[in-house]
């Protein structure tokens, strides 16, 4: 974390909205990417980002300067996304038979290599078949580039548990994606 960022965070912690705005401008894209990958839904991701920033504003006084601000924001985003998804999945169970990502082509299980395949969509389906912990660990490691220790800290689990989540996620993803390699 740069000195400038530290200074901005300190100002935001004192209630300086302009300083907090700087942080929102800086981190919005990354938080959206994470929220979208966690939720698999654009509208949900937008809501999660907003809610996460509001939480961050409330808690910014608790942030410790010796840790990574990006990791701290990611932890808030992950927690917000989990809360959001649990609530919405519960609601959707009553309202609609299937969540949005389920409407994607389920042929991911046995893809037709002879046709044009949207690998991104197949990956999304495979990703959403992972458990919450597996998906979160894999996203933070694979896409966000956090170290295993950082992922464990963000998820508030042990390093060993974090590794196991990543291993299980990788194993499942490989099985789902293997048939697409030839294409």
């Amino acid at each position, binding site marked *: 974390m740069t000195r400038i960022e530290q200074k901005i965070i300190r100002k935001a*912690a*004192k*209630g300086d*909205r302009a300083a*907090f*705005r700087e942080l*929102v*401008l*800086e*981190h*919005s*894209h990354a938080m*959206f*990417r994470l929220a*979208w*990958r966690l939720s698999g839904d*654009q509208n949900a*991701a*937008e*809501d*999660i*980002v*907003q*809610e996460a*920033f*509001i939480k961050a*504003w*409330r808690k910014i*006084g608790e942030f410790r300067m010796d840790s990574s601000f990006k990791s701290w924001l990611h932890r808030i985003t992950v927690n*917000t996304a989990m*809360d*959001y998804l649990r*609530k919405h999945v519960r*609601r959707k169970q009553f309202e609609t038979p299937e969540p949005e990502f389920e409407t994607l082509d389920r042929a991911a299980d046995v893809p037709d290599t002879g046709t044009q395949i949207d*690998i*991104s969509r197949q*990956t*999304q389906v495979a*990703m959403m078949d992972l458990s919450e912990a597996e998906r979160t660990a894999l996203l933070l*490691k*694979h*896409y966000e580039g956090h*170290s*295993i220790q950082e992922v464990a800290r963000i998820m508030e689990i042990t390093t060993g548990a974090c*590794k196991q989540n*990543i*291993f299980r996620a*990788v*194993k499942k*993803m*490989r099985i789902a*994606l*293997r048939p*697409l*390699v030839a294409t």
Partner: protein
Amino acid sequence: MKHITDEDLTLLFYGEHDDPELAVRVAESEELSDRYDALCAELKLADAYQPPQRGDDYGAEVWQRIESQLVAPGVGAFRRESKAGGRLGDWLASLVQPRFSLAGALSIALVAVLAFTLGRNGPQEAIINPNAPAGATPAMAMADIDSSRLLTHSVSTHLEQVNLVLTQFVNTSETSSNETEYATDMLVANRLYRQAAVQQGNHKLAAFLADLEPLLIELAYQAQSGSPATRERMQQEVKDGLLFRVRVMNKQLNKPEISV
């Protein structure tokens, strides 16, 4: 020699393996190289999982959407510490930009008159009349009791309305314009009652009403513009205790002979 597992290769792929010799061993072994290449090819496919692009001004859009919801530090949604202090008072004063219906405006005007009357009739220093017969009830004390009862009754009615609106709020997923309008009216009424309670020396009631204010502010100013997630959080916080406290306080106010 230790068997190399897929977990080892996964750690190698992510640059997290403890053994610096592992990469050399994989490079030297055809079988390990094939396994590692397969893993790389499969995991690299996952890179295609890319979110939809946001525009350059996405950060500004996010800011625009959340700015109105950023409560000043120390004036959190339903924080217990947010008693009606100078800071909250100042903030409230700056926030109260009436958007009442005509009926709402009339009811607020009535509440204002009532609160003013209650405030004026609040406890004052007892005037001792040395000529008064022993055991006589001072007229001032009677006036205090009457104004206290009037305040209790008025606040009870107010809490019934709050209870109704909160119950409706926690049981509906969509914000209606009525909801924010009622909340705005109740916010102003709540503030006036709180001031009346302070003037009457009923600090417990004043503190309770002060606790309600942040919630009414959020309902009035944030529920409509906030995201579904914000609404759900607020609903949960109301369900988690505030609704119960409103009901308990109202019950206490309605108990005969018990001063709150």
